[in-house]
């Protein structure tokens, strides 16, 4: 079974540009999470989708970040315009939803974003 995949693995952009990160969850997983690790800090929650609906977006830093999950499959996270402080590793995780309960989150390898 394929795990969570993320694309690209590494992106280097200039301040003010736009970047779109993609996450493909494990097939059949209705829950999809985005997390971010800024250098020297802990991994922090950004938002949670259940299928195509945003369940919790309390961790999104500001309105320069837009997450979508059309059709309840893969998700994209767009940063526009990017700022220097957006640099970090962006992780996606997915988990199954059964009987209204959610279970173990499986993480992708992350996208390393560098804003110069």
């Amino acid at each position, binding site marked *: 079974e394929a795990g*969570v995949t993320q694309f690209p693995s590494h992106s280097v952009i200039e301040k003010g540009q736009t970047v779109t990160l993609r996450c493909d969850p494990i097939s059949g997983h209705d*829950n999809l*999470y985005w*997390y971010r690790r800024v250098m*020297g*800090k*802990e*991994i*922090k*929650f950004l938002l*949670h989708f259940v299928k195509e609906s945003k*369940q*919790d977006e*309390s*961790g999104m830093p500001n309105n320069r970040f837009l997450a979508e999950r059309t059709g309840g499959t893969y998700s994209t996270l767009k940063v526009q315009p990017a700022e220097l402080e957006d640099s970090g590793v962006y*992780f996606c*995780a997915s*988990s199954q939803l059964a009987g*209204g*309960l*959610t*279970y*173990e*989150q*499986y*993480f*992708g*390898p*992350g996208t390393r974003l560098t804003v110069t």
Partner: protein
Amino acid sequence: QKEVEQDPGPLSVPEGAIVSLNCTYSNSAFQYFMWYRQYSRKGPELLMYTYSSGNKEDGRFTAQVDKSSKYISLFIRDSQPSDSATYLCAMIMNYGGATNKLIFGTGTLLAVQP
């Protein structure tokens, strides 16, 4: 104040040593406690999770939770070079609930020397 505190290390031990990794937390609402292992350039991988206070053992790994002290530990017996990784503690308020956002510690970098 951070919700979860974890010593970043690095921690270097000889092969075969017993390793003790720890986290403290401030929010008494946390009910589920996880340990993740992360190898370089990979995503975190769940090692163990425990509910409330007590011990849980899985092979060479033992997870311990003391809710009265808001303190959790992970012990690794007979450590191997392949255990070299970053170990992250994480917590959830209500596992199996509507949303299970993980609250992470900063991670401890462990190196097991052959």
